[in-house]
């Protein structure tokens, strides 16, 4: 059949029909609603139910939230304002308490003229975490901040002379120097043992007096703040960050120990991990508050926040160990075999091949462990520390605000929600990123 012939056929169209608009019921808002909300009797029922639920919740909460009581100085004043604006017997929020106490909920009883210190520590925290959180795109110089942060943060928060953290840092420098120089002279192993011994002697015997001497020569010190004044969100963040920071190296060692084929080492690690994971955090906090001083030599006593941080670190390290063990297990066996085939010894293989990959896989898990720990820091209110929840009880004990319930709980819940939600979103983003990279 030729072309010319086909052109003659009257039923073959030569031009394309103009596009017609789809029926109005399939496009736009209406179409979307038909597809997503009312696509059948069951779906319609669900939608109506959902609307009912949302309405019944919002109709209670929204009118309660909208309340012009931001400036009130006490609950009675709130009630007067509400009564004069809306009439008697109207239940409305009293926002005066948040206006009055939000700073306290953030910082506890930290001296108000020194608020710049926790704020600076918080900002530096992000700089220190940058190489971990956003691995690409951070200049290598940030690693220096990361390395120095463990020494800067306690100094900023607790204050005191700058020479103490510097003396402790010097101990690390000395140990590192001995390893670097001594490795060629007396062998790696002896150098490591020597460096540990020297560093311990330095910290236990030399560092304290030296810092005192230097302080008397060149006084460089921040005002000291006792742990008793720590509180609020700051306390939660301090406990969470310090505990997770210290638990990382401990967790790595525990995870390696659990995977090792040395029987005794493995048994010790498994026993430790399962014991810690088997008991609730609150019992460990009880141990911190009543028992830890009994375990230490007579006469030792350090403050409760430090004890809580120790127990939180022990608690977190067991969970981090399990997360890292998961990361180690997720690595293909080929990686281990390749490392062996290259002739790397155990520690080199771990450092160069296994750990970089395993830790990368475990970061989302570590972040969720951190979220869990951060939420669990509220438990310290049970042993009498003034975290946000503990502070809320203290605030309600004040005669001005006696009877306030929902505003405080709501505010604290909101603070935790903002932190935890953003961290979990970050962890999800990271998981997605890692997934595409592995494919």
């Amino acid at each position, binding site marked *: 059949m030729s072309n010319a012939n086909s052109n003659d056929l009257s039923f073959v169209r030569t031009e394309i029909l103009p596009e017609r608009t789809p029926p109005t019921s399939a496009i736009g808002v209406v179409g979307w609603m038909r597809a*997503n909300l009312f696509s059948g009797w069951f779906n319609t029922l*669900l939608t109506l139910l959902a609307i009912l639920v949302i309405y019944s919740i919002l109709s209670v909460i929204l009118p309660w939230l909208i309340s012009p009581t931001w400036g009130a100085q006490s609950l009675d004043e709130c009630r007067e304002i509400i009564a004069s604006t809306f009439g008697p017997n109207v239940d409305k929020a009293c926002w005066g308490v948040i206006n009055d106490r939000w700073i306290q909920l953030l910082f506890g009883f930290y001296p108000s003229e020194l608020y710049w210190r926790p704020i600076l520590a918080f900002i530096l925290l992000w700089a220190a975490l940058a190489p971990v959180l956003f691995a690409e795109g951070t200049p290598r110089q940030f690693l220096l901040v990361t390395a120095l942060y463990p020494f800067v943060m306690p100094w900023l928060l607790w204050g005191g002379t700058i020479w103490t953290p510097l003396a402790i840092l010097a101990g690390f420098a000395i140990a590192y120097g001995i390893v670097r120089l001594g490795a060629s002279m007396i062998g790696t192993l002896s150098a490591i043992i020597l460096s540990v011994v020297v560093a311990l002697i330095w910290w236990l015997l030399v560092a304290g007096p030296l810092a005192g001497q230097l302080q008397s020569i060149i006084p460089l010190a921040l005002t000291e703040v006792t742990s008793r004044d720590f509180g609020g969100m700051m306390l939660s963040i301090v406990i969470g960050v310090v505990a997770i920071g210290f638990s990382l190296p401990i967790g790595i060692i525990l995870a390696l120990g659990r995977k090792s084929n040395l029987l*005794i080492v493995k048994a010790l690690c498994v026993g430790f991990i399962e014991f810690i994971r088997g008991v*609730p955090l609150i019992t460990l906090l*009880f141990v911190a508050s009543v028992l830890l001083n009994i*375990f230490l*030599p007579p006469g030792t006593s350090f403050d409760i926040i430090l004890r809580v941080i120790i127990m939180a670190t022990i608690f977190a390290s067991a969970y981090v160990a399990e997360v890292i063990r998961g990361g180690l297990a997720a690595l293909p066996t080929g990686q281990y075999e390749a490392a062996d085939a290259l002739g790397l010894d155990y520690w080199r293989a771990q450092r160069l091949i296994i750990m970089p990959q395993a830790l990368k896989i475990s970061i989302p898990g570590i972040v969720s462990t951190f979220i869990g720990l951060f939420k669990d820091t*509220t438990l310290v209110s049970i042993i009498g520390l003034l975290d946000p*929840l503990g502070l809320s009880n203290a605030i309600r004990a004040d005669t001005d605000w006696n009877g306030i319930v929902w505003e405080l709980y709501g505010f604290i819940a909101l603070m935790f929600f903002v932190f935890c939600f953003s961290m979990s979103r970050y962890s999800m983003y990271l998981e997605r990123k890692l997934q595409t990279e592995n494919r």
Partner: protein
Amino acid sequence: MASYSDPPKESFRPSMLIYDTRYRGITIQIVALIGFLTLLGWIINNTAQNLADLGMRPSFGFLMEPAGYDINQTLIEYQNQDSHLRAAFIGLLNTLLVAVMGCATATILGVLVGILRLSKNWLVARLMTVYVETFRNVPVLLWIVFTMAILIEVFPPPSAFRGDDPEASMAVFDSVAVTNRGIYVPEPLFTRGFGDLSVFGLFEISTNLIVILAVLFAGIWGARKVRQRADRIQNATGVRPTTWHFSLGLIVIPVLAVLIALGLHLGYPALRGFNFQGGIYMRNSLIALWLALSIYTSAFVAEIVRAGILSVSHGQTEAASALGLRPNRVMNLVVLPQALRVIVPPLISQYLNLTKNSSLAIAVGYMDITGTLMGITLNQTGRALETLLLGMLIYLTISLSISAVMNWYNSRVKLVER
């Protein structure tokens, strides 16, 4: 011709303990063991010295002394003259009670939310996302005290039920009283019951309950037999006989018969004096803890269920449909077994978390093992070391038993790989 011989035997040198891989492992282990034992010895030594300074000797004798405090919510008989050990046991039962109740509710809620989150209905899916994110991103302790505050502030006091024209009235056909002290629900009573059975003289178990449970399990066993017979018939003939009415009858009718024979009736709570009497009384603290734990955990369960369902690839469902299976059999035979393999291990670890979180009962005054043994008993006797060790041991036992069940299940359903 090449001849092989063993390499010359080296004599043992001490340096081989470190540099020879054959011996290095042993060296490291011995060093680790010595280090651990030293640490342990150091701690025990310190403890002994500190306790000696305080004039105390570790002993568990205090457990037999009278406790002297009341427990306001008990499952079995308890007076304040009973021993500390019995008080601890009451606490343990309370822990288990709230853990079991919480796990059940969290599972039901979590499965519901998890499935609804996958709904094609945009509004419902978003609503469930909000539910999950709200509840899991706020500390559980906050939810517990928050729920407690709601129960106290929102519900009427028992006095509101009094008078001819009371402010509050009982719910569900005048049978359930919801007050700010707790909830009273009708209790089952038996006119012709068998009475209680004493177990070793320690506590009493209702014989009626045992009889009812025995009949129920016999019914379930019978229903299982019926199903197996249906399977056999289906294998032989290809036609599956209808059995559901038969099974249902096997389970329901005997239990009903026993209940009628025992003379079941309900004891309703009634306002007498300042408070309600009769019925089963659930304290606010129990309800707050139970609700908060279940809702908090259900958010995690929902995510687990959602992940489990998503993990079964669509091809599986399509293949099952192509084989001619009906939708509910596709669900039962193809999707659920695969999804459960993903769901169950993290689900059980959530149960573990819930059980451990139930120790937060102390924040609302519910007397669980933390509140009795590690709370009041500790404060009264001052035996911190013994009570805390015992309490941790109990929690550890619970956790390890749950893990053992998990490992057993895991090994049972694990895919057999090469």
